[in-house]
């Protein structure tokens, strides 16, 4: 009896939560991007039961509920794995593996790097050829592998040498994100500037606009390897784009220094 009442209440809630046009799943995604996972769960639940995108959406929204516990996470993982292993459309399977990777990374009490990396690899394999999501998965896979090595600089340095310097990435955004991860990982591992510099060049060549601190990181590395023209270009870009920043005075000094040396700045480790 009590269970029946709960069922009726849940159904009523789902009906109330769903705008009256029958497009429950679409409204579920809308609720999710508006950061209302409770509403999203109800709307996905009200959508057709066998609609695979709604199943995926419901699992995803469930782990984002404010009081989601290990059981919710475990149930979502099972559902996402089942969708990922299904013979559904490639995009759907890739999305399921991507969602699963994020669950392993940010919804566990401690991140499971190996599981997250494996899920990103499966997302990359599942994505249709040339699809953006395959490229996102490549970048994220590198990010979780680097995260696993953050605690030990020697391990991170060894891993850094094994990173593919020319991944098959077509888009400027993903090429930049990938190479910028390499640049900062190299700096965190305290590698010599000369070893990191090719990654900076690859990031600069990606056609993705650098922002704020990135101009200074690139400029400082360029100065240290003696690439005065590149350093000056980075400093000038920073001064032009952020003329009110508190570092403007220091950057002007750096610019004057590289302009005066004309490429003769002594290389040094960061």
């Amino acid at each position, binding site marked *: 009896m009590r269970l029946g009442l709960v069922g009726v209440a849940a159904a009523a809630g789902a009906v109330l939560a769903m705008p009256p046009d029958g497009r429950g799943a*679409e409204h579920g995604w809308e609720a999710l991007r508006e950061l209302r996972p409770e509403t999203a769960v109800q709307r996905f639940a009200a959508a057709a039961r066998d609609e695979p995108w709604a199943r995926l959406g419901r699992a995803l929204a469930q782990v984002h509920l404010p009081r989601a516990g290990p059981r919710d996470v475990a149930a979502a993982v099972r559902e996402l794995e089942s969708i990922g292993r299904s013979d559904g459309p490639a995009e759907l399977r890739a999305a399921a593996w991507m969602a699963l990777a994020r669950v392993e990374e940010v919804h566990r009490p401690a991140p499971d790097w190996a599981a997250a990396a494996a899920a990103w690899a499966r997302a990359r394999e599942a994505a249709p050829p040339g699809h953006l999501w395959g490229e996102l998965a490549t970048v994220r896979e590198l990010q979780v592998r680097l995260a696993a090595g953050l605690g030990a600089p020697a391990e991170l340095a060894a891993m850094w040498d094994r990173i593919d310097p020319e991944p098959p990435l077509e888009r400027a955004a993903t090429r930049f994100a990938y190479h910028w991860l390499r640049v900062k990982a190299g700096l965190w591992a305290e590698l010599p500037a000369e070893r990191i510099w090719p990654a900076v060049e690859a990031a600069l060549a990606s056609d993705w606009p650098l922002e704020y601190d990135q101009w200074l*990181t690139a400029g400082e590395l360029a100065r240290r390897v003696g690439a005065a023209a590149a350093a000056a270009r980075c400093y000038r870009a920073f001064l032009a784009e952020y003329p009110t920043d508190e570092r403007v*005075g220091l950057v002007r000094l750096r610019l004057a220094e590289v302009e005066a040396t004309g490429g003769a700045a002594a290389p040094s480790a960061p």
Partner: protein
Amino acid sequence: MISRIKASTWVGLAAAVLAFAAATWSVARRAHPAPHREARVVLRLVHGLAWEDKVAAYDEALAAFERLHPGVVVEQFAVPNHLWSMWVKTRLVGDNPPDVLMVGRGLSAEDTFRHFEPLGTALERPNPYNAGSPLAAVPWRETFVGGLRFAPAYLALFDETFGVPTSTNTLRLYANGELLRRHAPSEGVADFDAFRAWCEALARDARVAPIVAAGWQWQALANRYFSSQTQRLRERCDPFLTLAPPAVEPALALLRGRWSWADVEPRAGAELVAEMMRHFQPGFTAARRDDGLFAFNQQRAAMLLTGTADLAAVLAEAEFPVKILSPPLPGPEDERFGQHVHGRMVEQAAAQDAVFGIARRSPHRPEALALLQYLTSWEVNASFNRAALRLPAVREAPVADELVDFVPRTEGLPPGVPLFFDEFPDVQGLLTREIHRLASRGTEPRRSAEDFAVDVAPRHKAAVRSDLQRMARQQMLRSRLLDQRWMGESFGAAAAGRDDEGLWLRAWVRQVDQDLWSGHRVRSVAVEQAAR
């Protein structure tokens, strides 16, 4: 008889109905004055700056905005300062926020992310209300004093800008002109040594407290003195070579052993803070803003440490001439403290004041955006800040004559590692409790600085670690919010057979960076390495 009774009843009833209708009409007219009834859009702007001068200055600017936009009416509400946090949270949780409201105060970063509209691409284009001004071609983002790279306007963890400042607040010493004339050396007190000597003379000869602080302002002064000694230390806390890393970097560097309280720079910083804190009134860490103003106006203190916001109140109450001084800092030539000074410091731009944003739920977001652009346009911002005796938030905007001494110094080098890190509550709490060790009177500052460093260092490290652990957890929660945003967008589009490639890609690129370096890296240093 019956018909006579009936007639009088009808007359009575009609009179009652007429009276009720008249009362209703009168109340409705009061609740919705004429312009509101005709308005296409009623914007509600709410803040917690219940100072009369500020409210009147906003009123004037808002009336001018209404004249420029027929059909738009702006209602201003000033919530009393002490009620602001409770009020704003209730309105946001109740999903009934005003259209334009203050960002930051009383709200967490998550609250801001959930409830405020990112200003996004509008910031990259020139502010249309700047047409014909010196900033006509400058992107809106770059028209603010100090830029828009600080909380609460900009939240680094989300890499989004949610608000724009309408005023700037700088920290100054308000000096009693009579005491200054009687006791100051003839060459003035702009030089650090002369200033220090004047403070000694005031305590000895005038028998007044040299400095009283209004509220928490002493922390900002302590930061300024401390960071003058740690400019070079900051270079050792800059793994990504950004030339002025945020507070999280010195915190991580401390845990990684890249610096410690045994180093000369933080010792010199503590010594300098000790030198200055000795001149503050007893119990300054617990003093409220009004205590400081009262003591200064009663001539029980020679100087009041506070910001621009108190100028109108001081000028109205003080019965003596008031001089405005910038707290003098030691230069590279200073015998005791000069060796660690890299160069004169810029004034930190974190003093942006009255930062306003737009509620995500507002049905009038385009009009609200126009209002923010109007209030932060070159001419309007200068004009209403002049009326309110505040500093403009817009760069190169003309400043009222009374405020010339408050203009922040924008030339110079970045400050060093601060004593009180932003967004590190445990560190703030510890140092607030322990700072009295630096202020102890009758002892040598050098000794009290050493005591401070020795006694506080282990607890400081523990507080830094616990704050970093909290930050790592917060980053995890913020990552989840960002995931909902981009997965909702991209998976939703794919499910509907739409192609949305690129709409959320810029935010995604930033999130990859933030997840690794602000989340996992901080967790790795503060949790995993601590456990080993």
